[in-house]
């Protein structure tokens, strides 16, 4: 009996982690679905309104022209093309970070430029070595601007994680994201007046959620195996 249990354990250990595989499979399906929809949509719109794709492509090119890694857009109302501010990859002080952030703080929240700038800043901070982790880059970005709560941290964190290229953190990030949204008392700060204090508070809640997810995964790494 002991031998059988040992054999069974070895065979279970050989199985890929179900959480990771399930996420990978679902994400792969979503990628396929969205790509098909984008392709179908383009063809359908071109059939209905010839020239749409070219017009949109020109608009997107303008948007991307200022989307370099080492540049952050300075906002100008109603204009996607704007002067760029060079980001020093060796930024070291919080004051300097704030100085770089200030010009983009007036971009309306949820404007695509806001997301791009947030992501660029998180990337610049993480690559500049002035923060120790992608999460810290995201939280610093968010707190320094006093921007709006958990969802900004999510976006910045996801982008910063990409820079670090740590896939396992992305799994944790997604889990944490879902967990935070499911909390009954979750109230995005963007429905309040955003201040550095409540931004930090929101960041702390995200950190707590991450810790909770990690603890849960550590306690029970394979729920289906336990159920069996």
């Amino acid at each position, binding site marked *: 009996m002991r031998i059988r249990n040992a054999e069974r354990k070895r065979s279970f250990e050989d199985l890929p982690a179900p959480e990771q595989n399930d996420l990978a499979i679902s994400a792969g399906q979503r990628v396929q679905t969205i790509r098909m*929809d984008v392709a179908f949509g383009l063809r359908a719109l071109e059939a*209905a309104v010839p020239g749409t794709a070219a017009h949109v492509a020109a608009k997107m090119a303008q948007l991307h022209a200022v989307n370099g890694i080492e540049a952050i857009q300075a906002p100008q109302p109603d204009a996607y093309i704007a002067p760029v501010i060079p980001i020093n990859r060796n930024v070291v002080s919080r004051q300097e970070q704030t100085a770089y952030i200030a010009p983009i703080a007036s971009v309306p929240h949820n404007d695509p430029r806001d997301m791009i700038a947030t992501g660029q800043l998180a990337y610049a901070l993480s690559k500049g070595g002035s923060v120790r982790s992608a999460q810290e880059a995201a939280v610093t970005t968010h707190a320094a601007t006093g921007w709006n709560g958990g969802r900004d941290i999510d976006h910045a964190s996801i982008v910063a994680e990409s820079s670090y290229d740590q896939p396992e953190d992305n799994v944790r990030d997604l889990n944490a994201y879902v967990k935070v*949204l499911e909390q009954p008392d979750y109230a995005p700060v963007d429905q309040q007046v955003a201040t550095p204090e409540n931004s930090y508070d929101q960041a702390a809640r995200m950190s707590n959620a991450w810790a909770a997810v990690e603890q849960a995964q550590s306690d029970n790494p394979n729920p289906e195996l336990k159920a069996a």
Partner: protein
Amino acid sequence: MGFLSGLLNHSQNQQDAQQRRRSEIYRSLMHWEGKVGGELFGPIPEGTRREFFCLDEKTWVWHEEWTDSDGHHALTTRYDVRPNGILKSQGTKEYLALTPEEAENLYTAIVLYSEKVLPELERWSRLKK
């Protein structure tokens, strides 16, 4: 016989559990995409919930809920991709053609949406061992 049928049931239960889990993850991903998509269009007014996402290969959904002096409202706009154009419906059986301006706005949103969500989804899809 009892042992064999128990083993088969156990295997079936495991498959069902895995299928349920994948469905939940798939829905979670769409939920995440809907949040990201809803934030592409500028500030969301206080008390408003907005989601924009790709439902399947031929459908995009815009869902918005808000409250005003007349009470709570919810409006779901469905964009159906057809070979010769995109039609929209808003809770009625009637389908409307998009104006050129709406078509361009929709396509811009689709491009932005795919640029925001695809890199993350692709990275997650590569986690498979």
